[in-house]
């Protein structure tokens, strides 16, 4: 009886069932195909970034490896850069880049973080609404314009401070600091914004002042985002070319170690590549040394990024452990 009943049910509704089944199947197929394509598209755009980075590095290696193979390392990291006489010492260029970036960052980090804290935590709404777009406009100013400003306005000012010339490391650093500020501010502001409101409420509820809340609760909670902001700022500073080329004087000189250290001219790696790449014959030693400088820059940026992600990773693991 039971069996018969079941057979009947199945049999009676046979047509409609197969119909529905077929429909569902064809729907499934279209959806599957869509799904497949979308998945692949996302995968492709993700993977393409890796591929592009790998290709850039391969290209750099192909063009620049001769520099490391054909020139003795002692000479390559020598103290004098005068390429038209075959003197390829990139040490002064590295010192130049590192000094300009270091000074720029030590100006930009405190300024950027303080501004972000003000905008994110302290400023009333109307000020925030005013400040945020202004900072975004600042980010949009082309670097060459800032460089020109530095050349016309800042350099004479620095010279009036008593430096023999206004085209110095400090001039370049100020411009770079200004240039990396928007990056640092907007990313750290986002990081602060991501800290749940309940953290602040709880801190205030147990009697912390606003300053204690910011310093002890909000900043530590946002730390990984802040580290990323700083690292991106450094990346922007070390890679900048045109502005630096205009205002640092481009003297491939290792500055004297004295009080006026940062008020001396310097030549950065990026400016050297930009100034000299147009002139060199393809395939010459000078050409591959310029690409060699590119490799060194690449390695430096890569190292900075890995350190950053390591820092962030360690912190997040630590926080997870604490929460667990």
């Amino acid at each position, binding site marked *: 009886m039971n069996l018969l009943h079941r057979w009947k049910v199945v049999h009676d509704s046979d047509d409609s069932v197969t119909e529905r089944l077929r429909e569902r199947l064809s729907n499934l197929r279209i959806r599957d195909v869509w799904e497949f394509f979308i998945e692949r598209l996302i*995968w492709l755009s993700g*993977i393409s970034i*890796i*591929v592009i980075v*790998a*290709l850039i590095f*391969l*290209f750099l290696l*192909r063009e620049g490896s001769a520099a490391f193979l054909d020139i003795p390392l002692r000479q390559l990291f020598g103290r*004098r*850069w*005068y*390429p*038209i*006489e075959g*003197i390829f010492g990139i040490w*002064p260029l590295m010192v130049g880049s590192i000094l300009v970036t270091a000074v720029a960052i030590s100006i930009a980090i405190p300024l950027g973080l303080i501004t972000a804290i003000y905008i994110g935590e302290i400023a009333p709404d109307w000020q925030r609404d005013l400040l945020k777009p202004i900072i975004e406009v600042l980010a949009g100013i082309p670097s060459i314009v800032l460089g020109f400003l530095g050349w016309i306005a800042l*350099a*004479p000012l620095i*010279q009036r401070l008593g430096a*023999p*010339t*206004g*085209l110095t490391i400090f001039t370049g650093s100020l411009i770079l600091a200004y240039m990396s500020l928007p990056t640092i501010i907007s990313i750290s502001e986002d990081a602060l914004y991501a800290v749940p409101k309940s953290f602040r409420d709880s801190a205030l509820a147990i009697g912390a002042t606003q300053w204690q809340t910011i310093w002890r609760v909000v900043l530590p909670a946002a730390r990984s985002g802040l580290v990323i902001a700083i690292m991106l700022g450094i990346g922007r500073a070390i890679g900048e070319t045109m502005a630096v*080329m*205009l205002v640092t*004087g*481009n*003297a*491939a*000189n*290792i500055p004297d170690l004295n009080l006026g250290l940062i008020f001396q*001219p310097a*030549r950065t790696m990026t400016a050297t590549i930009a*100034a*000299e790449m*147009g*002139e*060199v*014959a*393809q395939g*010459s030693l000078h050409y591959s040394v310029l690409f060699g400088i590119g490799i060194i820059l690449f390695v430096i940026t890569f190292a900075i990024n890995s350190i950053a992600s390591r820092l962030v990773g360690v912190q997040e693991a630590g926080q997870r452990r604490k929460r667990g």
Partner: protein
Amino acid sequence: MHLSKYAMCSVLSLILLFTLSACVQPVDNTASEEAVEGRAIQNKGSDTLVNLALAWAEAYQSVQPDVSIAVTGGGSGTGIAALINGTVDIANASRSMKEEEIAGAQANGFDPVEIRVAIDALAVIVHPDNPVDQLTIQQLSDIYTRRIVNWNEVGGSDAPIVLLSRETNSGTHVYFLEQVVRQGDDENEDIFAPQTLLMPSSVGITSEIRRNPNAIGYDGLGYVTEHEKVLAIAKDGNSPYVLPTTETGADGSYPLSRFLFMYTAGEPEGSIAEYIDWIKGPEGQAIVAELGFVPLNEE
């Protein structure tokens, strides 16, 4: 698991593809072919010559309206490199081609031809407030190699000397290195002191000179304005100090005058030859004098 294997394969094959395609570098001959047909002449190189080349190109429009000439600067080395790579028809240079550049051109299948188009007197300039009026080549060499570091050693006030120079891709830089820093001596291996500020353009030098009383620099006479002070130069201690002018440049009494060149890939033909003949003719040379350069002598 299988996806990641696919990923690896596609990444590797893409990398392979791109590297292979990057290895194949097509030789670009189109620029020179077009020009022989008489349409656009590509002209690039020396920043010293660029204003002159622009003035020539502009004036030539009224002589030969159907020939257009595109002029860009960038430095003698840049122009010569472009000629070797086949992207321009005429390279402007404020120095002769180096041996390795000639070899590079020959490797690309042509002999570069050198054509003298004008004479330039190289002016040594300082801030107008600088009390120094004259220097010998020996003193200039000592200044640019930092054997002299203070203006009071050459009769000026007690102030550090800030050295300005063009970038190393400039023909003027090379000329100054050979004729001033090395004093024309082939055996001399002196080079610019590392403290020398390298300016990307002629204008970079003049504008820094204008605002910096400590600075010394050099530039083609055609670029000097009344805002910079030109120094009189003596070949050595026994020679008279001479200011650069069109006359002293032409008669050779000013020690730092030199020929400016145009280079072509092989003997110029067609519209390029006509253009160069016009430049060397009376009309072209009149423009040379107008812009503060020294016209070629008739002989």
